[in-house]
Structures are given as structure tokens and as C-alpha cells.
């Protein structure tokens, strides 16, 4: 019997570990994290000890040197944390803020920032979006000017996940305004650097995540904090975006599937007009439709994962998956609220939260239109 590369006994064991971690450490405290507006960062140490924070990174730095299939397993389970904000905060650290450092960072930089990030001693954030530039990344204006061995940074970033809890930022800044796409650089900024501050933002959903606006006023960091080459920041960041999208798809579909299951249980218990809601054909048909959509989304995501594991280019497929999964999750949340009636409209209901949380999937990590714009070009329009 040939071994499924996505489902070996080791995958199953790792899944069990992450599931238990999610069930024991995250889900029972999901509403507490909402109230705190952030995740209990002490849990990062525990995740580091379990090997969850460096799945694809070189064992030399404490990583596990595994392929994408383990990331998929991890986010399928973390997606069931009943707190989309928490899952997002974790994924920003593991798959959005650290990949460039692991891929392009110098040895010293990796020792200083990657090793503790994999161990769970440091938390990271990715700082790209600005008040005047989101989808159009090339429109950012945060400026890093060289002064001897130091960068002097001025500007602002907005909607940044882990704003309050991060120890360091992977910042995308303009280093040469005249060089077009060759004028951007990725720089590591420790959040205790003088001149840096943040303000938290009040979101409609994803309450368990600390999203903020960042301000840089003459923040000085060594030029040695540059990730990779000066002037290659835009290209490096585009690569870093790829995994972010796939992770978002995996965890979003896992969360939606959990909501579907919860709604099914609800419909079985809720009696109206003398019978369980689940016995009404309308309920059954709608639930089957949602199940079909979720299954299609899962299969599409699995195909993306398989391609990533095989080392094939999956950019087009991941772009379409991001677009499709966002739509499916929004629809599932909307329909599931409906089945819950008045309760679904309460903040405490899983459906109510999913309704506001899932809205983000079509905006964050590149809006639906960014995906459409890209695919239209790919299809030769």
C-alpha cells in the first residue's frame, strides 16, 4: 500500500497533538481571549516546545524541516479553536511574518530573531499595509533612510495583527523612492525600539486578535536588520504572501466545518412546530448544499497543498482557492445564523461570530478583487 504523502501515521499523531492543544488550551478560553482582545502569549512557549512554530524551517534553527502538509494539518486543527482571531495571530507568526527571514535572512539575523520565534520566546508581526496603501502594496510610503550603519524609519502602518504583542516586525519600507519595484526593503524592527508606538483598533470581528496602527518616528535599527537584499523587499514580500493565503484558506474552512457541525446539532435539538428543525426538508437541503460547498472548498485546498508539497507552482490555484473559500465561509456563516434564529444574532453564538469573522477572509491577505485582478491577467483578459 503506497503511503499518502499528506496522511502518514506521523501526520495523524501531529494532528492529535494539535487537536488536543486546541481542545484543552484554546477552545475553553476562546471567549476569554475575545475579552482580552488578544491571545495569551504564554501559550506560544508551549507551542514552541511542541514544535508547532517552525514546521517548515531548518532544524538548525529549531525547526522541524517538514513540508507544507504538516502546516495544513496544524491549521485544520487550529481552525477549530472557536476563535478566528487567535488562529490568525498564530498564523501571522508562523506563516506570514517569519518566512522571509527564514528564506533570505542572514545567519546572525536568524540566530537573533528566528531561533527565539521558533522556540516561542518571541512573537512577530508583518507590517505592510498602510493607511493609503493596501491592495496596491507598491503605494506604501513608510520610509527607511540610511544613516551610516543604521536605518532611520518614519511612517505608519495600519490593520497590523499582533500589534500589541509582537516582539519584532517584518517591516516593508521604501528605501529608494526612485527605483520602482526595486526600491523596497524588508527590515526587522524590534518593538522596543525608541520612536515606535502602536494604537489598538476596534474591529467588528476577530476579537481575539490585537490589530493596531503602528507609528514610526525616527526609529533607528541597524542596517544589519535588513532581510535579504536591500531593494528586493517587494519581491520577497510577494513570495511571503503565498503561504499566508493558503493558511487562511485551510483554517477558514476548518472553522466553517466546525460551525456546520454545531449547526447540525442545534437543528437536531431545536424543536419547532412539533418536530426538530433538522427534520424540515428546507433545513436538510440547505445543510447539504453547504456541505457540498465545504467539500468542494476542502478538495480545492487539498489540491493546493499537494502541489505545494510536490514543489509545483500553485499560485493560480491558491489565488482561486482564496477567492472561493472566502465566499463559501461567508455563505456558511450567513445560513447558519439563519438556522439559529434570534440566538444566531447573539455575540456569544458561534454562528454570530463566524458571520463577522468570516467577512475578513475576502479582505485580509489580499482582497477578492486583488485575486480577481490577478486571475484576469493570468487568463489573458
Amino acid at each position, binding site marked *: 500500500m503506497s503511503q499518502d504523502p499528506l496522511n502518514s501515521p506521523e501526520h495523524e*499523531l501531529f494532528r492529535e497533538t494539535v487537536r488536543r492543544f486546541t481542545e484543552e488550551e484554546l477552545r475553553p478560553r476562546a471567549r476569554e481571549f475575545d475579552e482580552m482582545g488578544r491571545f495569551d502569549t504564554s501559550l506560544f512557549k508551549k507551542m514552541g516546545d511542541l514544535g508547532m512554530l517552525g514546521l517548515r524551517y531548518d532544524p538548525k534553527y529549531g525547526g522541524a524541516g517538514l513540508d507544507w502538509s504538516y502546516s495544513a494539518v496544524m491549521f485544520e486543527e487550529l481552525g477549530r479553536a472557536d476563535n478566528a482571531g487567535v488562529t490568525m495571530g498564530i498564523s501571522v507568526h508562523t506563516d506570514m511574518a517569519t518566512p522571509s527571514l527564514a528564506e533570505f535572512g542572514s545567519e546572525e539575523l536568524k540566530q537573533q530573531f528566528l531561533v527565539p520565534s521558533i522556540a516561542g520566546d518571541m512573537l512577530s508581526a508583518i507590517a505592510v499595509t498602510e493607511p493609503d496603501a493596501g491592495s496596491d502594496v507598491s503605494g506604501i510610503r513608510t520610509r527607511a533612510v540610511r544613516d551610516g550603519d543604521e536605518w532611520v524609519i518614519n511612517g505608519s502602518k495600519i490593520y497590523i495583527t499582533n500589534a500589541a504583542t509582537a516582539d519584532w516586525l517584518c517591516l516593508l519600507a521604501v528605501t529608494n523612492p526612485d527605483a520602482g519595484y526595486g526600491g523596497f526593503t524588508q527590515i526587522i524592527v524590534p518593538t522596543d525600539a525608541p520612536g515606535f508606538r502602536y494604537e489598538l483598533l476596534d474591529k467588528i470581528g476577530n476579537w481575539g486578535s490585537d490589530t493596531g496602527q503602528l507609528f514610526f518616528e525616527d526609529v533607528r535599527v541597524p542596517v544589519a536588520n535588513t532581510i535579504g537584499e536591500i531593494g528586493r523587499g517587494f519581491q520577497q514580500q510577494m513570495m511571503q504572501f503565498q503561504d499566508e493565503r493558503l493558511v487562511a484558506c485551510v483554517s477558514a474552512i476548518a472553522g466553517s466545518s466546525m460551525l456546520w457541525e454545531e449547526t447540525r446539532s442545534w437543528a437536531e435539538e431545536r424543536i419547532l412546530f412539533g418536530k426538530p428543525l433538522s427534520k424540515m426538508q428546507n433545513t436538510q437541503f440547505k445543510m447539504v448544499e453547504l456541505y457540498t460547498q465545504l467539500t468542494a472548498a476542502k478538495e480545492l485546498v487539498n489540491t493546493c497543498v499537494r502541489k505545494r508539497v510536490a514543489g509545483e507552482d500553485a499560485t493560480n490555484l491558491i489565488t482561486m482557492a482564496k477567492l472561493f473559500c472566502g465566499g463559501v465561509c461567508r455563505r456558511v456563516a450567513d445560513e447558519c445564523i439563519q438556522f439559529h434564529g434570534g440566538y444566531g444574532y447573539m455575540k456569544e453564538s458561534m454562528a454570530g461570530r463566524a458571520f463577522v469573522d468570516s467577512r475578513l477572509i475576502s479582505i485580509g491577505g489580499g482582497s477578492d478583487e486583488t485575486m480577481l485582478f490577478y486571475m484576469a491577467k493570468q487568463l489573458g483578459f
Partner: protein
Amino acid sequence: MKILVCLKQVPHQDARLDIDGAGTWIKEDGIKFEINSYDTFALEEALRIKDAGEAEVVVVSIGPDRVTQALRTALGMGADRAIHVKDAEIDGSDTLGIAKVLAAVAKEESPDLVLMGLMSDDGNASAVPPMMAELMGVPSATAVMKATPEGDGYRCERELEGGALEVVDLAKPCLIAVQSGLNQVRYASLKGIMAAKKKPMDTKSAGDLGLSGVVGAAGAKAQIEKIYAPVRGEGAEIIEGSTDEVVTQLVGKIKELGLL
């Protein structure tokens, strides 16, 4: 020092349980399984003894191929070696049959200590540990909340009714069946999971253990007649009103029924 830990794999606590066609067990296809929660505490206890000094931890589980998952989890958590007892002939065994199989494994391994859970999440019989100890001819204690090395054995604190504890001393070799919650069970780390790939797992049949024809449905003295969900009863009365009214009425009812 050798410790044998007996693990049962049971349906996951969140699994949807539907009764099978024969009406004597649940449908097992498509549901997730996990290690019986009581057994995870036993395993953790064994691993703590190992961490504190020299001990080999051997885990054993009886069941179809799916139980290798439970054994692998145990290896991932730090157990050294696994024994998988797999034989269709064992299917349908009662608790005594299972105890015979485990005692036969223990006879081959001659451990200094056997650790297991007090009962299983699915069967709930609490029968296997004392039966196994009797078959092995070793002292045992059930519902153990705490076990500390004492002289040539263990001092065990057993949980009794009403929160009382009983202290018993067991000389090695002995068998300890633990209550849940006596420790914080560790996770299998990714490192442990990868290391487990290289750890040995033996497969044994009833014949290998000299139990052919002795265990299984044929040898069982107890058989499951049927499994069913309790039928919803009639006669529930809902008391309505303010909290004070509800409490007064409730107390009245309890007195009326002579329960107070």
C-alpha cells in the same frame, strides 16, 4: 525497572455514536478514536517514573489495526516499545477474556509495575484491572489518586466515596489502576512523534500468547445483549414562577415524595 502500560482505544468523546445493525455495538466506521482518558493518566504516570530515573515503558493495546494509532501516540509521548495484540479471535471477548490476554502479555514481559486506567470511557466496567492482577497473582489497587515509591513497592492513595482516601502499600511487582486527574498528561511533541518512527512495535496473536480457543466470543461468560438509547420517560413536571416560588414548590414536592 520495567513498566507495562495497558491502553485501550475508545471512540473520541466528540464522536457521533450510532448503534450498529446488530444492535450490540456502535458503528465504528468513519468515527475518530482516542486513547481511553483514564489510560492517558496511567501512561503519564509511567513516563514520569521514567523521567525520574531508569525505567523502560512498554505499552500494550488489543484491537484492530486502528489501535496502532494509540500505540504510536504513546511512543510519541515517550514510551519505549509497543505491543499490538491483534487477532480476530479475540473479538467479542468479555472483560475476563481481555484480562487474560493482558495477563499473558504481562507474563511474557514480567514488568515490575503495571499501570492502567481505572475503567474505560466506552465499556465503563472497571473489571479488567483487578481481574488481570488476580491472573498475574500480584497485588493491586484501583482508583489510585497518587502513587509514591515506598520501600520495595508503592504507597497508593485510593479514592473512596465522599472524598475519603485510603492508603495502601503494594510490594512489587504490582498493578495500579489510576483514577483520572492525578496528573497533567503531556502532549506528543513533533520531535517525539518523529522519534517514535524508529521505536519497535511488535504484533502478537492469541496463539502467540498461548490463548487460542480460550478468549473471544466463544469463551465469553458475558455477552452484550443489546445497546439502546434510553427511551424518553413520561411524567416530567415543569415548575414555573419566581425563584422563591419555584424553590418552595420544589421543596414541597420532594417532601411529598418522601425524599427528604
